[in-house]
């Protein structure tokens, strides 16, 4: 029937229908089926540019296919459909519409053949993800949404400056591997890194995602950071600075997650941590590394959404969002608990889960390049992931102490979504051969070598031992942790107040002096121009004529001289 439709259009159409249809059942059908139609068209896109356009004389490549693009778009569509199953019965209509448009933006970025198209879809994502944050409906969500929007609009401007600069210097908008070597390319890199939650601007993620609704944070966890990874793969493969940035993100995520008490904020920090692994891989830049980044992004979207679903059900059913308020929920929420545990094992790259078959590709890439330090830091970080997410999340939420809460388990549609993603986590872990052929480069890698499995089992299980032995030091506290956003959330207002305080006396004094000057001036004007003053009072006509003659003589004389 249709051979080619820009895949993002399926989701945009779905969003419009969702906004218009009043029947709940029909709407549910649309939000679930539209991503599946999108998925169909994703797989119809052949390699190379398939749809061109023009804007202000610039050639646009609206849809360009390629293995890595298809891979990312595929997982975005799967995520969108499964998220819809999870959300349709509980999310507000606005949230469902915004989530579909957000996913459309992500799919659009995946197939963007030029930087202008990429930028447009990039901004669509920023816009509608902000709406998803706002659908949290609380004052905290509103404020965090505003900060989130400012950050992403700023990132968009930086990206746009870079794109314009690149157009001026090279005359081409084509998406191709660049090197961060001049102002424009640096701006593009920084613009993308802001969306990847790279330092120093990573706080927007942990700030905004946990304030969204229990369903909204599932969508948020998937798209923004992973499109940034795709953009890095397409534009900056092998950019060595990314290795350092990625390692920083990995450990930033671990430390902040260890300090955190909010259930979903722990998961938000672990997004930064996991995206850090991918950024390192893009920085290494070899074929194995790019395969690792792509595979890990694919697996990550699934298990991270699964974790956010599990946490979302807990937040929805208990109305609580802090580790200190929950605990012992395994009694009445077995499905949510088991799905959470499977997600937690997958994120920890436990053997037989998707994390193991994808993350070890990245470690392998570090080995192949002889990057000793990177390899050992990644191994330590894998242990840290088990510590901060793999055990911490399920332990504090479902076990720990008996909070006395006996909430119901997840509703049926949420169970289906969670069980499906839990199934995928294990499927990709047991049969990585299903995922490997979809990767951008040919894979010659076997994760299940006995020695490697044993090494990871030792690493992870002894991290588990460390967790339980150090439990007294891991006690949750009713605190938040400061981040770079302190600068504008606290520092800036304090600075303004400080300047106002010390600036006030001189400003008042200066104003008084100015007022005095103005007073003198008006007094003198009143003196000369007033109706009794020399210029203001009425003169006799003869005197006036005499003055005019005098002035004319001066003028003529001056004219004659010069």
């Amino acid at each position, binding site marked *: 029937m249709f051979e080619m439709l820009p895949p993002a259009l399926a989701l945009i159409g779905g969003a419009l229908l969702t906004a218009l249809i009043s029947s709940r059942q029909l709407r549910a059908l649309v939000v679930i089926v539209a991503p599946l139609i999108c998925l169909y068209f994703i797989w119809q896109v052949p390699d190379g540019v398939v749809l061109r356009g023009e804007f202000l004389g610039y050639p646009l490549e609206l849809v360009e296919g390629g293995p890595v693009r298809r891979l990312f778009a595929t997982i975005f569509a799967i995520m969108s459909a499964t998220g819809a199953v999870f959300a349709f019965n509980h999310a507000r209509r606005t949230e469902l519409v915004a989530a579909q448009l957000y996913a459309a933006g992500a799919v659009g970025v995946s197939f963007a053949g030029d930087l202008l198209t990429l930028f447009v879809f990039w901004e669509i994502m920023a816009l509608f993800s902000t709406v998803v944050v706002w659908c949290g409906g609380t004052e905290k969500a509103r404020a965090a949404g505003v900060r989130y929007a400012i950050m992403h609009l700023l990132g968009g401007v930086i990206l746009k400056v870079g794109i314009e600069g690149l157009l001026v210097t090279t005359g081409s908008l084509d998406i191709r591997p660049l090197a961060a070597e001049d102002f424009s390319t640096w701006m593009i890199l920084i613009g993308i890194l802001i969306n990847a939650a790279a330092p120093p601007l990573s706080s927007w993620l942990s700030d905004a995602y946990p304030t969204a609704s229990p369903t909204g944070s599932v969508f948020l966890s998937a798209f923004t950071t992973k499109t940034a990874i795709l953009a890095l793969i397409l534009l900056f493969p092998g950019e060595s600075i990314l290795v350092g940035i990625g390692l920083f993100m990995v450990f930033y995520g*671990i*430390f902040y997650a*260890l*300090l955190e008490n909010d259930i979903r904020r722990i998961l938000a920090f672990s997004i930064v941590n996991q995206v850090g692994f991918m950024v390192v891989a893009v920085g290494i830049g070899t074929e194995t590394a790019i395969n690792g980044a792509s595979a890990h992004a694919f697996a990550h979207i699934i298990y991270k959404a699964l974790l956010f679903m599990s946490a979302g059900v807990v937040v929805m059913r208990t109305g609580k969002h802090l580790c200190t308020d929950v605990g*012992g929920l*395994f*009694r*009445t929420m077995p499905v949510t608990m088991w799905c959470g545990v499977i997600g937690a094992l997958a994120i920890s790259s436990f053997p037989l889960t998707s994390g193991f078959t994808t993350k070890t590709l990245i470690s392998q890439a570090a*080995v192949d390049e002889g990057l*000793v330090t990177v*390899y*050992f830091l990644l*191994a*330590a970080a894998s*242990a*840290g992931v088990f*510590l*901060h997410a793999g055990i911490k999340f399920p332990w504090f939420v479902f076990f720990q102490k*008996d909070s006395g809460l*006996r909430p119901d388990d997840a509703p049926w549609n949420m169970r289906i979504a969670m069980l499906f993603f839990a199934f995928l986590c294990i499927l990709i872990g047991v049969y990585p051969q299903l995922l490997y052929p979809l990767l951008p480069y040919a894979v010659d890698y076997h994760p299940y*070598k*006995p*020695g*490697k499995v*044993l*090494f*990871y*089992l*030792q*690493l*992870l*299980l*002894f*991290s*588990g*031992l*460390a*967790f339980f032995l*150090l439990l007294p*030091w*891991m006690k949750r*506290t*009713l*605190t*938040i*942790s*400061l*981040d770079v956003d302190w600068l504008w*959330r*606290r520092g800036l207002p304090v600075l303004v107040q400080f300047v106002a305080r010390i600036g006030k006396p001189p400003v008042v004094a200066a104003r008084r002096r100015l007022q005095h000057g103005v007073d003198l001036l008006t007094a003198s004007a009143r003196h000369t121009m007033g109706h009794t003053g020399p210029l203001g009072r009425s003169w006799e006509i003869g005197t006036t004529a005499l003055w005019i003659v005098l002035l004319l003589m001066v003028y003529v004389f001056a004219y004659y001289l010069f």
Partner: protein
Amino acid sequence: MTQSDNHWLTRPTTIRWLWIIGYSVLAMTVLLQLLIPVKGYFGVDSWFGFGALFGFLSCVLMVFGAKFIGKLLKRPEDYYDV
């Protein structure tokens, strides 16, 4: 007291058994290295029990590192609200 308040998983005897099983599994993963050689990429990582020691020590370091960072960065929950 309802049945779920005294879940079998939370009884002290169960927890003791869990620790015993846990330690046995840990010991097994290390002892298995006598049978299955771990391929070391950089020398040290093929040593006996290296994965176990490395994982454990990394976690100890990270927990105490986080504790230290927490001293500097932790603030009351309502820090930004007031």
